[in-house]
């Protein structure tokens, strides 16, 4: 009965070598396409003599990127935007967990709270952003509030869905042990909800960068959003493109950091499907 699933250790280490080779091979084509596209873009801009204030050539963007970090404190501004996004994300997530737990432990709370959440979701957050600046000031606090508002909804929906999606069998197992609501939450509902929660967090982390930029657009004197506005006013389109690159690097970094945390925390999720058969 046992031993059938055991993989020989030798085959496994041989497998990692092959995996690396596979990866290189798979990365080669997208990389070639990227280089080709850049070359084409450079050539088109050069041949058609498109002015830099409309579409800058990749080389100009690259120079602006280097200059930005060397002379215009891009790193400082990126850190500000990143910090606002992450802090707002954490505040929003903590809020969602608290609301989710309340809703699940006291089911009547759901009927009371949910309409407000939906109402809040239907209002475009960009519309309330200026008000947040008025209420919470020009500094980092207003951005954190805006980010939290923007990233709240996907997390909340998933927290509630995750905490509620429990098999009757598992509930029976806990009930048979006379487990309290809080014990069921701690030992069963919360770990069970983690894969759902992370699905929400993956959406929210992208929203959080959008929220931070919106906040900076509406009112700030630092951050990447502020720099993008400056670059646009100065018709320094190469700088604006360079800032887009910085933003996307930030987004990708946040995304993969979260994914890494997810595989560590929800290590069982891949096998869950098989496990439940």
């Amino acid at each position, binding site marked *: 009965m046992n031993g059938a699933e055991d993989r020989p250790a030798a085959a496994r280490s041989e497998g990692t070598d092959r995996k690396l080779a596979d990866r290189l091979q798979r990365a080669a084509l997208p990389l070639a396409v990227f280089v080709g596209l850049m070359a084409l873009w450079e050539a088109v801009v050069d041949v058609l003599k498109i002015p830099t204030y409309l579409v800058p050539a990749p080389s100009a963007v690259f120079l602006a990127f280097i200059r930005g970090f060397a002379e215009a404190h891009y790193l400082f501004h990126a850190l500000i935007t990143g910090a606002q996004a992450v802090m707002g994300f954490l505040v929003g997530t903590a809020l969602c967990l608290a609301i989710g737990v309340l809703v699940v432990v006291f089911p009547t709370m759901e009927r009371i709270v949910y309409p407000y959440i939906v109402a809040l979701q239907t209002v475009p957050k960009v519309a309330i952003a200026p008000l947040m600046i008025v209420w919470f000031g020009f500094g980092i606090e207003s951005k954190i509030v805006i980010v939290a508002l923007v990233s709240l909804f996907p997390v909340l929906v998933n927290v509630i869905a995750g905490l509620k999606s429990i098999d009757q069998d598992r509930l029976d197992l806990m009930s048979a042990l*006379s487990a309290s609501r809080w014990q069921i939450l701690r030992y069963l509902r919360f770990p069970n909800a983690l894969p759902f929660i992370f699905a929400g967090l993956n959406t929210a982390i992208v929203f959080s960068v959008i929220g931070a930029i919106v906040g900076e657009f509406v009112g700030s004197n630092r951050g990447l959003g502020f720099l993008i506005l400056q670059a646009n006013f100065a018709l320094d389109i190469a700088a604006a493109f360079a800032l887009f690159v910085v933003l996307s690097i930030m987004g990708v970094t946040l995304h993969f950091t979260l994914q890494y945390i997810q595989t560590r925390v929800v290590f069982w999720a891949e096998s869950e499907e098989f496990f439940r058969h």
Partner: protein
Amino acid sequence: MLSSNISGPEPAAAGATAAAPSIALEIAHLTMIYARGRTAVHALDEITLSVRDREFVAIVGPSGCGKSTLLKLISGLRLPNRGAIRLYGRAVEGPRKDVGIVFQSPILLAWRTVLENVMLPIDVLGLPQETYRRKAVALLELVGLGGFADMYPQELSGGMQQRAAIARALVYDAPLLLMDEPFGALDAMTREQMNLELQRIWSAQRKTVVFITHSIAEAVFLADRMVVMSPRPGRILKIIDNPMPRARTLDDMLKPEFGELVRQVRGLLGGQAGGEL
């Protein structure tokens, strides 16, 4: 040396003399009707049964005869419409600590190791960790999972998962073990093996077992008495004594007296009985 480590405190059957085994479980005039959608399901009708301490009773009947409902009532997970259940002299009014349950599926938690799954009742009931950890390890040894304590359930085969579930039901010293078709999902060969193992575990632990099955052969192989039930509404057709000596072996299944008991049970269940031999 194992058994001294494993045997828990004596069951709450105070005042029982060694010569006359006391009654562990008394069921009187139990009737259960519940609503499924708009129709009323008459699941159980006038069930009266008593089980002696340390007895192994199998309840056998066709699918949908209310066997599982009966088990949920004994465990206190559901309450009957009429009738009474007394466990060790006290009426069952809800889930109790003196009952261990093995469900149809193992219901192991994917985020807990095998040992942590076995320890779940200890965590929920707030029993001393140190003492029971030692006991859990010994129990894993007993059910043949000695080397698998730190693996996750999804790394185990179906039979091994159900062994872990048995260890979990045994860990908190409940004198009564309820088993709801625990081997129904296993293949025939694993199932025979598990029946042998269960007999061994039962004689090592001296528990009272109520075992639900729709396999006639399994019931006859394991039980001191077979309670044969009719299709819905579930009634007790007959209770058959099984005098075959312990420890029974798989070869005993070929003996004429075994065949005679099987024939008796099958005769009661009639042509439509769903039990596979």
